[in-house]
């Protein structure tokens, strides 16, 4: 089968589908007689990636497959197509989502424990409705609280292939480590404290600023 043909059909399929496509979906598009296998499709994907290198679109792999999307660097002009501003999510929602993502499976109680405040039921409802989180089971303790986890849609939405692709969580520093560090000059530039200078003024101000800072 002509490589160019395979490449262009793969491109057309990705653009027509409106959803991420797996290798199975993409090989399934070809006639069996054409003998286009997963390897040929992969080669086509790589070729398209190279074609798009300098363009405003890009081909990425997310949890449910491959998709073509607008390169985030071009978000500014493209976003002008829509009058409405994209949804901003509150810190409370993002913190809850982050806890579910990094600590799953996790109960509401455990989220409350870490955040130090009650979980707003609206937030959990919103996350469930957006299909970013789901109930994955129940913890075997009195009350059988629901265990929450993230979904494939969550990964797709944030352009991730797997959970491991999330930025790594900062490490906890031990109280004792610090006493040692503090005795050394310049030791206060440890990881958590690192953006402290920028953090202090940015944190409170107004809710709008807080959201933008995030």
């Amino acid at each position, binding site marked *: 089968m002509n490589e160019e043909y395979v490449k262009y059909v793969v491109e057309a399929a990705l653009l027509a589908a409106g959803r991420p496509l797996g290798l199975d979906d993409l090989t399934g598009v070809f006639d069996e007689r054409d003998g286009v296998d997963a390897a040929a499709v992969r080669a086509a994907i790589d070729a398209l990636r190279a074609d798009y290198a300098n363009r405003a679109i890009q081909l990425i792999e997310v949890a449910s497959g491959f998709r073509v999307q607008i390169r985030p660097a071009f978000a500014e002009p493209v976003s002008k197509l829509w009058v409405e501003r994209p949804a901003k999510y509150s810190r409370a929602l993002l*913190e809850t989502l982050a806890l579910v993502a*990094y600590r799953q499976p996790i109960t509401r109680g455990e989220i409350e424990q870490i955040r130090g405040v009650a979980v707003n039921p609206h937030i959990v409802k919103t996350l469930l409705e957006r299909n970013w989180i789901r109930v994955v089971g129940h913890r075997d303790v009195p009350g059988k609280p629901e265990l929450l986890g993230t979904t494939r849609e969550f990964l797709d939405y944030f352009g991730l292939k797997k959970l491991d692709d999330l930025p790594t969580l900062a490490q906890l520093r031990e109280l004792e480590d610090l006493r040692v560090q503090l005795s050394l000059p310049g030791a206060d530039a440890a990881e958590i404290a690192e953006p402290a200078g920028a953090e202090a003024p940015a944190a*409170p101000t107004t809710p709008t600023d807080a959201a933008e800072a995030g």
Partner: protein
Amino acid sequence: MSGADEPGPTDPQTHGASPAQAEMPFAVVDGQPITVLPRDLYIPPQALEVFLEAFEGPLDMLLYLIRRQNLDILDIPIAEITRQYMRYIELMQVLQLELAGEYLVMAATLAEVKSRMLLPRVRSDESPDEADPRAELVRRLQEYERFKRAAEGLDRMPRLERDTWVAAADLAGRKVTRLPPQVTLPEMLLAFQEVLARSDMFAHHHVQREALSVRQRMTDVLAALETREFVDFVRLFRAEEGRLGVTVTFIALLELLREGLIEIQQSELYGPLHVRRGDGRSAAPTGAQDAANEDNLRAQNE
């Protein structure tokens, strides 16, 4: 730039960081930085409400107090932080903001840690952390801060409908491919079993073995005689199939002949035989009804 030791006014980094432990100005009024809230409210209550509501709980507020002063989270001056925290709590109460219970719980925790800090400390080498009354509070603050940062990180990630959009092209007149249903052999056999049970042919069936190879060969021979041309009789046999194969073909030919589906001609005595499709002159059944009867009959005979 006025001089090396005089930080430029446009450099916020040095501006904010210079006196390490000094409070960050809470507000700037007439160019004067205000670091301590006056007793009388000088900020419009609404602005303060917005300010205070920006906290995501007591841990967030404590973290703010600590970060605001560039303090290290692991070495919090607990007395001072507690004093500031209480001031905010009072303010929230004055403003009659809905004060979540967690804020008061934290106030009590801070008061307790403060009082324990005043007691003489016994430091044991095995568990130094337990000796510091602030340890649990610090652990919670750190843990919260990790996820606060994780949330910020999440918010920075390019996401659909804000930083990127799915690229899509129209497919006009899109049609849906219908896949043919799947069938398993057992399904078909069960269906056949039911037909047999329904018709009486099953009851009259006496022969142990259904000569399916003969039936297949009948089909194959008919297919080979597609045109009404004569074919050499011997060409219908394949020697490589052996005695059994030849027998099967022969029986199939006899069966086809009996059903009038083929005719065999011999132009001279002992001459070669030729086979072609029947032309209707043979002793074939004369209707579907008869054909079906014949079928039943055959079933009985087999």
